[in-house]
């Protein structure tokens, strides 16, 4: 086997290791997962019930109420999906620092791209499972129907958007490396900012103009717009949503990785990796 093939093989095994570790930990924290799932479903219900409340005004037909409820549900589901990706990415460093394993991971011969991408890959898989459960649980509970839904298109778009989310997530994951506590806090701020400008429960056009400008560079804007159109209206994959996601995906991962490397260098120069010995 050539050296390149050998190294590629080793890196793929390393990537598998990251995913495998997260599977182990998810199994060990299974009851927490059930509790969080319950909380997310309850929280989503409180949002989707707004459509029922709006119908009480008498200005909405049953069909419009269903459309509004579905639209809110898509927003809440993608919010939850994004939240998981950001949580996993932001906590890549924070979590390992808490467990005390960070130095062992950073001294291992695993490329940072593979390390962070492995974390992102698990987050996407895990997030998709949870988002699917959330969507159908709430839809069933409220008796919502989406006869024209194009789930395949929504899923494809979400998969494409995930690449951008991982890239942006890598950028935020560096924050706890630079400042252990403040970094994790800033990660939440970044996540909140991205979601609020992306039109989670409302069209982007209702926001002030400066927020609309930020929305243009947020991958969540296009994911939300496209998924909503696919599920509520049965639309296919629109190029208008694909190209911005492609550009952000192509740019976000290398930029995120470059930022992470700068942060890692800073941490190594200043002794910011957790002392576990």
């Amino acid at each position, binding site marked *: 086997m050539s*050296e390149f093939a050998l*190294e590629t*093989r080793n890196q793929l095994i390393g990537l598998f*290791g990251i995913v495998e570790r997260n599977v*182990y930990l998810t199994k060990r924290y299974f009851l927490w997962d059930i509790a969080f799932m319950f909380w997310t479903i309850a929280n989503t219900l409180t949002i989707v019930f707004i459509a029922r409340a709006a119908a009480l005004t008498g200005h909405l037909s049953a069909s419009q109420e269903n459309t509004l409820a579905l639209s809110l549900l898509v927003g809440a589901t993608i919010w939850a999906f994004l939240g998981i990706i950001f949580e996993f990415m932001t906590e890549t460093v924070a979590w390992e620092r808490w467990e005390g394993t960070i130095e*062992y991971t*950073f*001294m291992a011969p695993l490329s940072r791209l593979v390390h962070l991408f492995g974390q992102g890959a698990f987050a996407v898989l895990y997030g998709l499972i949870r988002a699917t459960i959330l969507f159908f649980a709430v839809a069933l509970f409220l008796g919502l129907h989406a006869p024209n839904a194009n789930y395949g298109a929504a899923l494809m778009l979400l998969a494409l958007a995930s690449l951008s989310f991982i890239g942006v997530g890598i950028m935020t994951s560096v924050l706890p490396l630079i400042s252990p506590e403040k970094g994790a806090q800033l990660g939440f701020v970044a996540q909140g900012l991205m979601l609020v400008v992306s039109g989670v429960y409302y069209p982007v056009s209702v926001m002030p103009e400066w927020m609309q400008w930020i929305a243009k560079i947020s991958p969540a804007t296009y994911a939300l717009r496209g998924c909503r159109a696919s599920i509520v209206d049965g639309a296919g994959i629109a190029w208008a949503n694909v190209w911005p996601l492609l550009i952000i995906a192509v740019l976000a991962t290398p930029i995120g990785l470059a930022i992470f490397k700068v942060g890692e260098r800073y941490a*190594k120069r*200043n002794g910011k990796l957790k002392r576990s010995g």
Partner: protein
Amino acid sequence: MSTLAPSTAELTSRLDRDAPAVEVRDLRKTFKRKDRHAGRFARKRPWPALDDVTFTIASGECVAILGQNGSGKSTLVRLLSTLLIDDGGEARIFGHDVQKDASTIRRLVNRVSVEASFFKKMSAAENLSYAARFYGMGPHQTRTAVPEILARVGFPPERRGESMENLSRGMQQKVALARALLTSPVLLLLDEPTTGLDPRSKLEVQEFIRQVRSEHDATILLCTHDMAEAETLADRIGLLDRGRLLFLEPVEDVKRRFGVETLEEAFFAATGREFENEAQDDDDEYREVFG
């Protein structure tokens, strides 16, 4: 060894065994820290953790670096394991520069620290498998290698699936040793591996280190503040004091040089201070830079 990750095996076979295993020249590392006695708003001042440290370790040798808390031992281990970037000088492992050739170094080196750092909810077997993946060991390899290495460190087979948080400190340290050896490092960095262990676990770990030396072609750098441990395990003993390496010699040469009977006396002769008298404050402040 059957547990060798493929590229590590390849790399190991290509190493120049006549080159020093470790070659450190004028290595410097300075952190900035606040003097807690200077008030809340005091500016951070440079604190030399390593001050022009120079030494070499031959392939297959076991060298102990003695020093108290805050003397720079852990900084040295971190620099050699690519976890810190130096401020000057150079460090080479089998001819590979630690900073410039970090990816190669990572395949050659592993480390056991004072704290057995693991995912506490995962079992010993899961933690070891996870660590092994980073070194290119797939599931079919770890299925046999993990039980083998755990058996070698005397870990009870029936406890392999138990969460790390349920294991005693001694057990956890054995798993940490197993993790380091699983990747077949040519340089093993032991940073106070027996600190905090009960006497029996301490002896077991020390016995295992001896066994590793006799059975493997590994070079060992042992950083400790346990003088008896250093004397028992190492070929040569160095003393790191406030970032400066005062000597690195066989123990008998050290005693002869200072005309003393014990290493404690040698420490006193070399530094003018009692070994036990180090202020804990220094250590606490030093640790802040890692917090």
